[in-house]
């Protein structure tokens, strides 16, 4: 990415910073980004589309008398950069604010690259199409499979952050993965199972995996789901897979720990610091770099993302912050100021949020449940949370009934729901395994911005979970 360095130099972004200060800004930062994304879609054994996208531009943030203004442009000509600065200044001046904008932070100067072998964007299109086609063909395991879609997603992202305080932080990463969905029809019942696997890595990750058995297994599960019943609705003890635990924690608890939502009172964790919210076996962490998760050494405000323990042995220890929310709480930023891209302003976001493993084996979690559900991750489609009350709902994959301490038949269309603070109190056993995953195809949405995150944890047992069914 030397080319990017060159481009940046010709842009003379530092001069724009100086100009911002000259226009009355007490603080200014500029984020320059160069992003490549490729999405290859194969549907029913034929290449449907090959989309390739390049995004580059500059976002300028200024603080004037405590008010924050932001503007961005993908037009990198000098005149455009100056107009963009003008827009940011105008936006800040239109707001009346008495607050100081940002907490103090360590000023970093660094350049960090995810170690990769092969840049996925540079691999030949033939190779990428062929892997996706083969994986799709492998999903047609029987006449019961009616449709199969396979996506290969490849991204490369370089971000530069400079500020009027002297920060200069450059981070380069790459995220790749494959997503597949099979639709099966058995005796008139149609079911779909989508699933994906991604990794912050180069193309070597794509080449290292057997995607043909990955898609065939998804088809198997779709057929099994179409043959099965829905669970009886009610409230039960459940054992949940790591990805489901991870996504529920991220959505229902992690977001509630975000300083901006706490500050406005929107969060269910408002005024709960120091309070015991879960059993002593529950510790929840947000960490920038961890195996399987999203590579995030520095945030989009140039702050180092370290390990933040949010909930420790059941007690709420701290919230996560960007520099703006940190100031409201008179603490330091935890390195969670993240922006989707140069067109968005950093807001408080999680990085890799997970529950720390303890000491139980999976069988031990299951064996003393008389009747319950083993909530599975493969095939989960998503969820939503109402942050003010902590109400959550998730559509999980085809799951298993637990009967007399043993895993029994498959059930489909399983929806779990609850209120996070009540559900956390009923987590009574935590497994010793740990799985953290990230995703090139999706990510977390907040305030109209998406961000790549990592989620996960061990298997856990929850004593009370509402399960929808018919």
């Amino acid at each position, binding site marked *: 990415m030397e080319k990017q360095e060159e481009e940046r130099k010709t842009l003379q972004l530092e001069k724009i910073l100086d100009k911002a200060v000259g226009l009355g800004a007490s603080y200014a930062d500029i984020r320059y980004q160069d992003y490549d*994304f490729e999405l290859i879609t194969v549907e029913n054994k*034929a*290449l449907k*589309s*090959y*989309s*390739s*996208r*390049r995004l580059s*531009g500059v976002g300028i943030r200024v603080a004037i008398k405590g008010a*924050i*203004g*932001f*503007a*961005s442009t*993908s*037009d*990198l000509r000098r005149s*455009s950069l100056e107009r*963009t600065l003008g827009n*940011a200044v*105008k*936006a800040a001046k*239109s*707001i009346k*604010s008495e607050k100081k904008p940002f907490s103090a932070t360590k000023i970093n100067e660094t350049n960090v690259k995810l170690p990769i072998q092969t840049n996925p964007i540079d691999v*030949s*299109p033939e190779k990428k*199409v062929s892997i996706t*086609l083969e994986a799709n063909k492998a999903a047609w395991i029987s006449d019961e499979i*009616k*449709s199969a879609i396979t996506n290969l997603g490849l991204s490369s992202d370089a971000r530069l952050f400079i500020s009027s305080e002297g920060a200069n932080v450059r981070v380069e990463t790459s995220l790749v993965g494959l997503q597949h969905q099979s639709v099966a029809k058995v005796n008139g019942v*149609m079911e*779909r199972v989508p699933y994906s696997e991604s990794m912050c890595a180069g193309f070597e990750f794509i080449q290292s995996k057997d995607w043909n058995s990955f898609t065939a297994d998804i088809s198997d599960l779709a057929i099994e789901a179409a043959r099965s019943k829905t669970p009886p*609705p*009610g*409230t039960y003890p459940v054992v949940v897979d790591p990805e489901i635990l991870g996504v529920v924690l991220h959505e229902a608890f992690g977001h509630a720990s975000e300083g901006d*939502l706490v500050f406005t*009172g*929107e969060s269910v964790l408002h005024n709960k610091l120091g309070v015991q919210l879960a059993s002593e076996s529950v510790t929840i962490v947000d960490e920038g770099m961890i195996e399987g998760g999203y590579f995030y050494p520095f945030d989009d405000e140039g702050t180092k993302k370290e390990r933040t323990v949010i909930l420790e042995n059941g007690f709420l220890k701290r919230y996560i912050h960007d520099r703006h929310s940190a100031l409201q709480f008179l603490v330091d930023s935890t390195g969670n100021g993240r922006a989707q891209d140069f067109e968005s302003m950093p807001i408080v976001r999680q990085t890799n949020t997970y529950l720390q493993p303890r000491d139980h084996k999976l069988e031990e979690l299951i064996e003393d449940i008389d009747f319950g559900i083993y909530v599975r991750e493969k095939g989960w489609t*998503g969820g*939503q949370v*109402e942050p*003010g*009350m902590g109400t*959550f*709902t998730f*559509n999980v994959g085809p799951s298993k009934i637990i009967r007399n301490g043993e895993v029994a038949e498959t059930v*489909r*269309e399983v*929806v779990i*729901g*609850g*209120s996070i603070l009540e559900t956390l109190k009923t987590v009574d056993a935590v497994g010793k395994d740990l799985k953290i995953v990230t995703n090139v195809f999706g990510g977390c949405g907040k305030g*109209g911005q998406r961000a790549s995150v990592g989620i996960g944890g061990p298997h856990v047992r929850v004593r009370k979970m*509402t*399960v*929808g*069914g*018919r």
Partner: protein
Amino acid sequence: MGATEAEAYVQKARTIRGEFSEAIENFRTVESIEKNLRVALGKKTAMYSTSILDEGEISKAAAKAVKIAKVAPEDPHWKHMNKKFGKASAEGYYDSALENLDYQEVVETLVSAINRMKSYDARVRPTRGFVTTYVSNVSIANSYNDSTERRETGIGAWMRTKAEDNGMKGTGTEHQQARFWKEINFDDLAVKAAEKAVKFLKAKPISSGKMSVIIRNQIFANILGVILSGPINADWVQKGRSPLSNKLGNQIASENINIVDDGIMHGGWRTKPFDDEGYPTQRTLVIEKGILKNYLYNMYTALKDNVKSTGNAQRPYYWMTPEPQPNNLIMKPGEASPEDIIHDTKTGIYIEDTIGEWLSNPVSGNLNATVTHGYLVKNGELAEPIKGVIISGNFYELLQKGIETIGNDLRNSMHNYAPTVKLAPLTIAGK
């Protein structure tokens, strides 16, 4: 460079977004120029997109698209791109007042809304909200020497409040999307969001069971869009993914159900004169008196089925292929006012807001949603507020015999439009 066909799609947009809680937090302006090039080499296609402006970039984009297309396998169904552009007489999708809005007017409007929420009740505080306005200019040109252009505006407003009283918490959310600045009544949204938060301070789950369900218009509009948009998409039908495949002309719903896709209605969220392939938009009957009449087409799927495009090509993002998607999906309203519907219900629940309804499964028709705001209905009146229960049912079964009453209060959630409806008893998972 060897391409037999090419289509350039350029979107110039300016978005202004203001965010607030108890005060305005920030403003941002985003200006973007996004360019997408789609090429075909015989029956091989590819696309390349870029946000970069310099002149060399366009020829680089063309070279890259051609390079990809060369190695793509042939698509036996590919015929050609849309050769001839056209415009339908759509109106109400551009507002010059919105384009020329200045920050000051937005600030004053938001400050007024914030004050309405705060002054409604001492227990209420606005916790989050935003307003987003955009003006977008789309131009399309092709290698058949045709070109076309459209300019549109839109505004979305969203706000949430929280009420706290003696450890009890209630929240209220309101949102609206429109094409014109003046269409959004910020004060009205603010008062409703505040009122809702107070009313739901005492909301509780109820026991599991089966009950009649009345669903508020915007929520039912979401459900309609989530379940039907895919299955009526000709691409899903052709690829075997739609449960509505081979059902044209069949009675798939009861006779009181009429659903249209209307790309030319005045002021609709997705109203426009032509779709993302330059094909004129139109009004398409989807379900008439319960009978499935049409699927929605883009150029590719239309040529495959030997029919005309319905003007439904939509690029989810500028860098993605145009796929058939509804323009404005509308369930036609009936006669009953929402008050009448409640009045005629002896016992049941009225659903004000849900989360997760968008996760309902269009393939199996499984409808589920977690109720965050609802009321028990007792003897024709709204009674205790409820929350945290999951409703489930099958949408296709509901279409056939489960939509008992259709309200007269059509409202949109984005591009989906529906009235309030009353459904036959559904399963409710509660405490």
